[in-house]
């Protein structure tokens, strides 16, 4: 009985530590966004590398949908008996084959290759900048917390 009571008290204090919870949540989001972005970066690199490979079909993912899937991804319910337990979330898994789409070629070529270099380069740069932005956001989150810890000085 006493132990259960202490447990409840602990839970309560943990719930009140909303600052850390918020930080965790925000970091979790950017962590997954960066992972999806990195996976997409790899896909786009593969497309650009195979620009001259006969019958190669360019692939891509819908960034928003993949990120939404990653946010709701649950690798199996882990039973927790306290809110202080971790929820068993292992972060981002690799892109599922159901999320992989084929690029529709604007100018189909006779060798069956569907890589359109303009599109791929554009998407690649776009994705790189998004990844960069994600890094900046994460760094800012840390800076905010550091600023709070130092009471605004420095």
């Amino acid at each position: 009985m006493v132990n259960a009571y202490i447990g409840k008290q602990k839970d309560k204090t943990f719930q009140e530590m909303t600052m850390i919870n918020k930080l965790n949540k925000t970091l979790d989001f950017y962590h997954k966004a960066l992972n999806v972005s990195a996976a997409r970066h790899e896909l786009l690199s593969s497309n650009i590398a195979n620009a001259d490979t006969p019958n190669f079909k360019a692939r891509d993912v819908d960034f928003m949908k993949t990120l939404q899937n990653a946010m709701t991804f649950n690798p199996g319910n882990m039973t927790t008996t306290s809110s202080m337990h971790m929820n068993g979330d292992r972060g981002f898994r690799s892109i599922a084959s159901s999320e992989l789409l084929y690029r529709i070629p604007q100018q189909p070529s006779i060798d069956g290759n569907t890589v359109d270099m303009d599109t791929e380069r554009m998407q690649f740069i776009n994705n790189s900048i998004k990844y960069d932005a994600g890094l900046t956001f994460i760094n800012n989150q840390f800076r905010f917390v550091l600023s709070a810890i130092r009471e605004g000085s420095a």
Partner: protein
Amino acid sequence: MSLFNVFNIAGSAMAAQSQRLNVVASNLANADSVASSNGQPYRARQVVFSTLSTATKEAKGVKVAGVIEDKSPMRVVHDPKHPMADAKGYVTLPNVNVVDEMVNMMSASRAYQNSVNLMNTTKALLQKTLTIGQ
């Protein structure tokens, strides 16, 4: 970490494109070789690219599946003074199309540059990733 795999992908593409460039150089150098190592006139060669599986299933690299000999007809020129001319005075010259080869060369060098760019961008992103929280 999927970003590291980009180095494998871009690296394989660079290797494949440089081999293509090598074949172009061979073709251009031998554009007028009436006798190659087998005694026959030189035949133009072309590389065939195919995808290369990497650590990630969906992202493919590039490999040279093989080097094939160009089957197009040889260039035949009437030159009775040529030492390799046949009884009718015709000389069989390589089927190297110099214009095709120049286009091939430009395409290979641009593709190579693209791969270098991929690597540099990825390197910059990775280096920035390492400075998270600093």
